[in-house]
């Protein structure tokens, strides 16, 4: 008699797992880079080919790196949130213009507004590989010592910025 209950018991365990799963966010894949120093890079700027930007330039302060591209639809979606962020926050936002052509990237910034302190042109995506980028957009938070503290995959929303990023940035700035 009791053996006929086994399927039900197994199913009960499965439901418990699924119910727990509902409250999890699979998009938050932790980056192996979290807790590691930010990969070194030095790239030409998108809007000024003669000047460069590197991770070194940002040392000693809390900053964010946002990976974007003119061909990326989701970047358009998160763009207003980034513009609002750059107006409200003193934390510098650096753009990594991923696998893009310079004219396309700068035209995009002119058309939709530029939330970035500066954008680096990663035309062949090599720096993106160092950062483990597997989808655009992605956003990294880097602390004063140059250590990556947080990574967000997919478009940022005002809600995520206020509930997740703002407390973290404040904590890092106060440290």
């Amino acid at each position, binding site marked *: *008699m009791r053996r*006929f*209950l086994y*399927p*039900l018991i197994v*199913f*009960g365990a*499965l*439901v418990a*797992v*699924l*119910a*727990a*799963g*509902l*409250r*999890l966010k*699979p*998009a*938050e*894949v*932790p980056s192996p880079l979290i807790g590691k120093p930010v990969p070194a890079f030095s790239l030409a700027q998108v809007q000024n080919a003669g000047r460069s930007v590197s991770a070194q330039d940002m040392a000693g302060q809390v900053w964010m790196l946002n990976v974007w591209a003119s*061909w*990326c*639809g989701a970047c*358009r979606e998160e763009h207003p949130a980034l513009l609002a962020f750059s107006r409200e926050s003193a934390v510098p936002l650096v753009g990594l213009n991923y*696998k893009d052509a310079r004219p396309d990237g700068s035209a995009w910034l002119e058309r939709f507004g530029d939330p970035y302190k500066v954008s680096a042109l990663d035309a*062949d995506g090599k720096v993106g590989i160092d950062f483990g980028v597997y989808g655009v957009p992605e956003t990294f938070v880097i602390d004063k010592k140059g250590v990556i503290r947080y990574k967000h995959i997919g478009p940022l929303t005002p809600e995520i910025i206020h509930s997740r990023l703002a407390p973290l940035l404040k904590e890092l700035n106060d440290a």
Partner: protein
Amino acid sequence: MIPELGNFAVMLALCVALVLGVLPLAGAARGHGGWMALARPAAAAQALLVAFAFGCLVTSFMVNDFSVAYVAAHSNSTLPLHFRIAASWGGHEGSLLLWILILAAWTGAVALFSRELPQAMAARVLGVMGLIAVGFISFLLFTSNPFERLLPAALDGRDLNPLLQDPGMIFHPPLLYLGYVGFSVAFAFAVAALLGGQLDARWARWSRPWTLVAWLFLTLGIFLGSFWAYYELGWGGWWFWDAVENASFMPWLVGTALIHSLAVTEKRGSFKNWTVLLAILAFSLSLLGTFLVRSGVLTSVHAFATDPERGLFILVFLTIVIGGSLLLFAWRAPSVGLGGRFAVFSRELALLLNNVLLAVAAATVLLGTLYPLILDALGLGKISVGPPYFESVFVPLMVPLLVLLGVGPFVRWKEAEPAGVARSLRWVAAATLGLVAAGAVTLRYSAGVALGLGLATWILLATGWHLWQQVAGRDWLRRWAGLPRSYTGMLVAHAGIAVFVVGVTLVKGWEVSADVSLQVGQSATLGGHTFRFASMDYVKGPNYLAARGQFEVSVDGRYVGSLVPEKRVFTVQNMPMTEAAIDRGFTRDLYLALGERTDPLTWVVRIQHKPFVGWIWAGCLFMAAGGALAALDKRYRARRSVQVRLPVHAELGHA
């Protein structure tokens, strides 16, 4: 107006489904004939109402009614008409309505073709299907209504995801759902039999054709999905062990076990409890697939936009349907009793092994699919389980199954003589070993290829030999024509597995690929073929701009054809897409996809030479054709007197 009519029809359908789900079941329990008689008209009314609602949704897409939120989110005025129609099921809400439509159609079909069923049985089966419809229609109305208006209306739609703008989108979801939802019939028969306490050979015979048809649609749906991914995703893979692919593959594995187990229950009255459990599990896994796709617990290329509220709704529904049926199983199964006895070495044992292997395979796929979720839920970190896991656990389970597949048909029901089976198969075994050894000497293939080709040869020879034993003689043609369709269907499906195994083995073992940088005028060589980059044009499609390359393929300087790959940018969503060019052949596919343009004149091009890849899909088509033949067997169409005629083919022992 049209969306409101659709919405109203869905609401009416919910009321009808409630009637269908309550009164006939209550009538069957209390012996109330009038209530039971409601089942058929209610099933018909439900089917008509849902079909009308679905027609309203399709119409909204056809006339570009962007005041409907769902249309605005998944269509666009520049989208061609056939894709606008397919866009009806391009998102969560519409595909859910398609699911309900197919459920209503299956319910209607059962109502239409259940004349020979006892009234109580038919009422219970239709009632159970009605209860399932109540759950899904409520889900649609309360969390995911495709008819919701958008105020103010959008000027134009956001367009269908370019990945879905493909003929595959027109056929893949309906076929897959026909399979998924089709298992609800076997499920309803199982629950009805448990309720009525009539778990017997007749129940198995009624379930068999429905299960076969659902299984063949699921086979076709998975085949089309794989075929589509192969040419559309642009990297030439055909199966990715993606969570959602697994969600369709698990019911297929269990469904395959079920059609074999039903054979035992019908012929010998054995395995009743096991068969009824498989019928419950096949549909439960379909429901689980729905949950995984629509709740957002797993990430996948197939996942719909997700919403925790929807996830919770399906989880509760899942718990009631599966939990309820498993509880019923635990309560009723012990009293059903054992079936006919069988000896250790018999057809029953062979089919039991088949069932165990398939069920374990499904369990390993389930474990691999849910493992990331389980670890995450226990706070043990986030991991992903990929093809290495699935390939290393799946292949070892399939090897004994494929060996058994050759032997099974030669083993008699009830009791067989091992020596006799060995005698009938010794030449088949010798020929297989001989051919594999000869191949190893001439082609010098690896152990993996030898194993795969050996198994395929074994199955083909054993299947052919079995057929020969049935028809050999002077009047072989007449004998062949006289074979029962379910027997022919079994042979065709088994041969299909052999063809499939050849394809998988040779693609895995022998494919070659190269990524090359080419300018117009330059050539690359791969697998004996030379690909010359002849020209590059820029063209405008209805809703995209494309770079279109022209490649000329030659073998030893002899022109054999041209390949025209495209790189498209869909203008509405500004999304790039790769359209691979494929030259299909009986023994190989040439697969060419444009990568990135590294400078104005140079393109990265990925060229692949894939031997026998077409055999993978040919094998699937054979399997589906076998299922169709078996489902068309005469005895399923006969009336109640069928039982008397059964022993005629019994000695043939078709499974």
